[in-house]
């Protein structure tokens, strides 16, 4: 049985529908992520699960019990807030002990549990410090330890890594995965950072305008997005208007003035359908225009711009029809980090099984 069921939940604020008939379930032990741009309803949904807000329609069911009449302090659900919300007048250990105190556990029990929790997040030497004496990463760990100490059924994390710098965020991601695996508490993680969601989650629900656009495992979301929004929101993608010319083992698409390409077959697609052809930059090969490519889909263009990232260089290529295409070139070849200059004629190409045709 699913641990948490969100049953057809809707929440309106006056005319604005923040959460629109959302329906999904989360399994025990899962690292589940709600991903979407700001204002997509993910935080509203989180607040309803925590109990700070009530759905207008639908139900939130935990362990088979409707939470409608359970106030936030009675729900076995804890939240790690974006600002951490550590109590400034309490030491680290007092902060972590707070949920146990509220649960009226004995002093001895609290002492042992807090000690273990401090060890778990490597903060033993900070036990008697106050939050303002800690670094951002340490505060984050205190908030996690506090949220997890009395083993809630569910831990909600509201963009908890948002305030950290890039390096620290990466480190905290690794710690978060390890912590979740060790403790086995179910996590519901809210973020607008798609890379973070891909790195952390077992499953991701991509939200937009209060609805779930797609709910899938990270590799499926990235590799087989269901619609343009998901394709565009997760990672970088090239998108080109396309019309279906013929349907057989593969699709033949017309890209307007650019010409025809072969694309993977997709169930339910018929001749004349209009939509978008999407392809990830790393699926596009790039070479000098003078070199031949074995790929069926190829065009010659000129380098419009490039971004040297370090491990890869992203080339932005002007296609003959005026559209732009991004191609990724790994910098693993020794010696040269940069292969093409601005204005160089280049040949971009991809295989018939790369990319996808999306109608939605």
């Amino acid at each position, binding site marked *: 049985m699913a641990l948490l069921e969100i049953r057809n939940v809707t929440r309106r604020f006056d005319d604005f529908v923040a959460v629109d008939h959302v329906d999904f379930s989360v399994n025990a032990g899962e690292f589940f992520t709600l991903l979407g741009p700001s204002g997509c309803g993910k935080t509203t949904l989180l607040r309803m699960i925590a109990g700070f807000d009530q759905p207008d329609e639908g139900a939130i069911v935990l362990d088979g019990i409707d939470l409608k009449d359970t106030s936030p*302090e009675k729900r076995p659900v804890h939240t790690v807030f974006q600002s951490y*919300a550590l*109590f400034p007048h309490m030491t680290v250990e007092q902060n972590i002990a707070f949920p146990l105190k509220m649960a009226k556990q004995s002093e001895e029990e609290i002492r042992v549990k807090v000690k273990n929790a401090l060890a778990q997040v490597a903060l033993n030497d900070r036990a008697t410090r*106050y939050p303002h004496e800690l670094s951002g990463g340490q505060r984050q760990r205190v908030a996690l330890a506090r949220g997890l100490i009395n083993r809630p059924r569910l831990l909600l994390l509201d963009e908890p890594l948002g305030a950290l710098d890039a390096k620290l965020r990466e480190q905290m991601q690794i710690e978060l995965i390890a912590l979740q695996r060790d403790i086995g508490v179910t996590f519901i993680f809210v973020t607008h950072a798609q890379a973070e969601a891909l790195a952390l989650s077992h499953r991701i629900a991509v939200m937009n305008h209060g609805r779930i656009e797609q709910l899938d495992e990270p590799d499926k979301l990235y590799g087989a997005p269901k619609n343009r929004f998901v394709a565009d929101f997760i990672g970088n993608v090239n998108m080109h208007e396309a019309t279906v010319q013929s349907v057989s083992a593969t699709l033949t698409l017309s890209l307007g003035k650019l010409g025809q390409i072969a694309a993977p077959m997709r169930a339910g697609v018929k001749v004349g359908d209009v939509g978008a052809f999407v392809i990830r930059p790393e699926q596009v090969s790039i070479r000098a225009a003078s070199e031949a490519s074995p790929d069926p889909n190829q065009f010659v263009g000129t380098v419009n711009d490039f971004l040297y990232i370090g491990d890869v260089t992203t080339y932005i290529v002007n296609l003959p029809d005026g559209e732009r295409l991004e191609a990724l070139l790994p910098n693993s070849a020794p010696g040269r980090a940069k292969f093409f200059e601005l204005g160089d004629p280049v040949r971009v190409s991809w295989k018939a099984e790369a990319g996808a045709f999306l109608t939605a």
Partner: protein
Amino acid sequence: MSLTQATRVRGERLLKYIVSAPPFVFLLLFFLLPALIMVVASFRYPGEFGGLAPLFGDLPADEKGLTLENYKIFFSDFIYAQIFLKSIGVAALTTLICLVMAYPVALLIARSPKKSRDLMVLLCVLPFASNFLVRVYAWMIILGPFNLLFSRFAVIVGMVYVHLPFMILPLYTNLEKHDPTLLDAAQDLGANGWHRFWRVTFPMSLPGIFSGAVLVFIPVLGMFAIPEILGGKDDWLVGNMIKESFLGTRDWPFGSMLSMMLTIMVLIIAALSTAFAKRGMRRA
């Protein structure tokens, strides 16, 4: 540091002195100097018709120069210490009642929508728009028919009424700064309404309570108008004694001595409470 930089730093420092000089001189002339005059006066003899006896001159030895006589009188008769203790009691009780009454008001204002907060604060200080004495006399009209006038009760009522805003304002200023997410977090972690107040809001408001208490306690300690108007003959406080010494018996040295004792007592209480509050305050 380059030469021009050094010049600029020196210039800034000079500017700082120039700007702070007038208030500094003002305080020196009209606060510190009178205070020192009072210290000296408390060791002198009273003049024949009020004021102070001369320090030198053609007078008997026990009527000129400096003396410890005023302090001897204070410590020889328990009545003075008694009045001091009574004053502390009235001030402490007033402070406590103000705190209990002001806290809900401050909390209500702090948790109201931003738009209405300013109006509510304005309403709290609105009584200041009318004269202090008029407001105290108004209590005579209110309490008179109930036969409550000229009692300790009437004094406390007057004290609380006059000083309540001084407790509300610092409390509100403190409470308004609290991050509401902390209460959400506390509730999320299992705290009911009482625990949210007692474990989060209250301890975090201690600095506000402390400043409010100081702003009420110290003025009440020296207040003489309210006991005189609303109190009975047993309700004389330190302030009344001091006022009577200067304006009634015209014994300036004795009044100066009482003022000195009051100042010393306030300083001791302030030092004690600061030391006591430091543990709690350091965290908040």
